[in-house]
């Protein structure tokens, strides 16, 4: 749910990183945080456990610049990936404008990817959204690991519609900004269509 403020000439969009636990959602955000100009970003907030597992969400506000005189801000959120945090994931999805699914390329995590994607579809549905019509991109993360499955094999299982797919190594930053850009574009194009 985009928030357009005509008075302060601002537009705010909410983007959510979804995916199985330990897949690299928080790492994506950390990389964006590290590489962004200090003027363009706010604080990175991580509500995590003592062992650095996401407990509720990570949050990073980004200001990208102006479009037609409107300051364009993206609020990036991650969900906690672990299965038992489902109630929290539902809360974070509320009002989101677009979703990035961060899949773990390791063969052993394919079941977790599939389960998490199904969970995304279900949770979106209960919030009144349909992933089929929503701004959505897929990131295949951890491409550098020796146990990574081939891209086409993962695509066959995880592609939900005609979404763009990016290969990533989030710890090194590979594909991180490409994925974010692609989603941000989709969200802005969606805004254009909505009016």
């Amino acid at each position, binding site marked *: *749910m*985009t*928030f*357009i*403020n*005509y*008075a*302060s000439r601002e*537009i*705010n969009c*909410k983007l959510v990183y979804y995916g199985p636990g330990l897949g690299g959602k928080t790492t994506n955000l950390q990389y964006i945080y590290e590489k962004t*100009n200090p003027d363009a970003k*706010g*604080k990175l*907030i991580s*509500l995590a456990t003592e062992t650095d597992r996401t407990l*509720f*969400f990570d*949050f990073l*506000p980004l200001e*990208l*610049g102006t*479009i*037609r*005189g*409107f300051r*364009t801000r993206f*609020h990036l*959120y991650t969900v906690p990936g672990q299965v038992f945090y489902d*109630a*929290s994931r*539902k*809360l*974070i999805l*509320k*009002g*989101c404008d677009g979703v990035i699914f961060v899949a773990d390329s390791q063969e052993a995590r394919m079941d977790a990817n599939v389960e998490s994607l199904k969970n995304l579809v279900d949770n979106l549905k209960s919030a*009144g*959204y*349909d992933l089929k019509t929503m701004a959505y991109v897929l990131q295949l993360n951890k491409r550098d690991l020796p146990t990574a499955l081939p891209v086409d094999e993962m695509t066959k299982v995880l592609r939900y519609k005609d979404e763009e797919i990016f290969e990533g190594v989030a710890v090194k930053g590979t594909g991180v*900004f490409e994925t974010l*850009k692609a989603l*941000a*574009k989709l969200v*802005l*194009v*969606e*805004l*254009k269509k*909505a*009016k």
Partner: protein
Amino acid sequence: MPLADTVMYEEEFRQIQEVLGRLRQESNARAAFLIDRNGQQIAANGENLESMDSTSLASLTAGNVASTDALAKLIGEKEFSILFHEGEKDNLHISIVGGKIIMVILFDERSSLGLVRLRVRKATVELNAVFEAINRKQEEDRAKGGTAESPFAEITDADIDSLFSS
């Protein structure tokens, strides 16, 4: 899109700022914020606002309210309408306006919970009226087939690309 976008217009924004400013003065509070349930700040009024990370405040408050709401439903309550966080020096009073908007009051020993509650109640009535007016305007706009002055109707691919050029 299943949910309508939130839109804020100049006139209503001014009214909201007025109500918030008065609320802050009358309650002797340090700051007053309005935030939508998704964690976007709508308006703010207070001392030294620049020194405060109001973006983080907004998103954490929204997360706080969302999880408290879910807790309420879990035990069969409709909602917990007021949240109060008491600190050594500063306190936060969080309440809901018109079911949709979160109001946060930051206050210290110059005020009291009783005074804040009293003033919040009064301001809530005023703000409800403003938000109803915004809803009406938005519906009228939608009936007309969209806001004439929408900044995104004529957005081009080049505009979008330029955001990412730096």
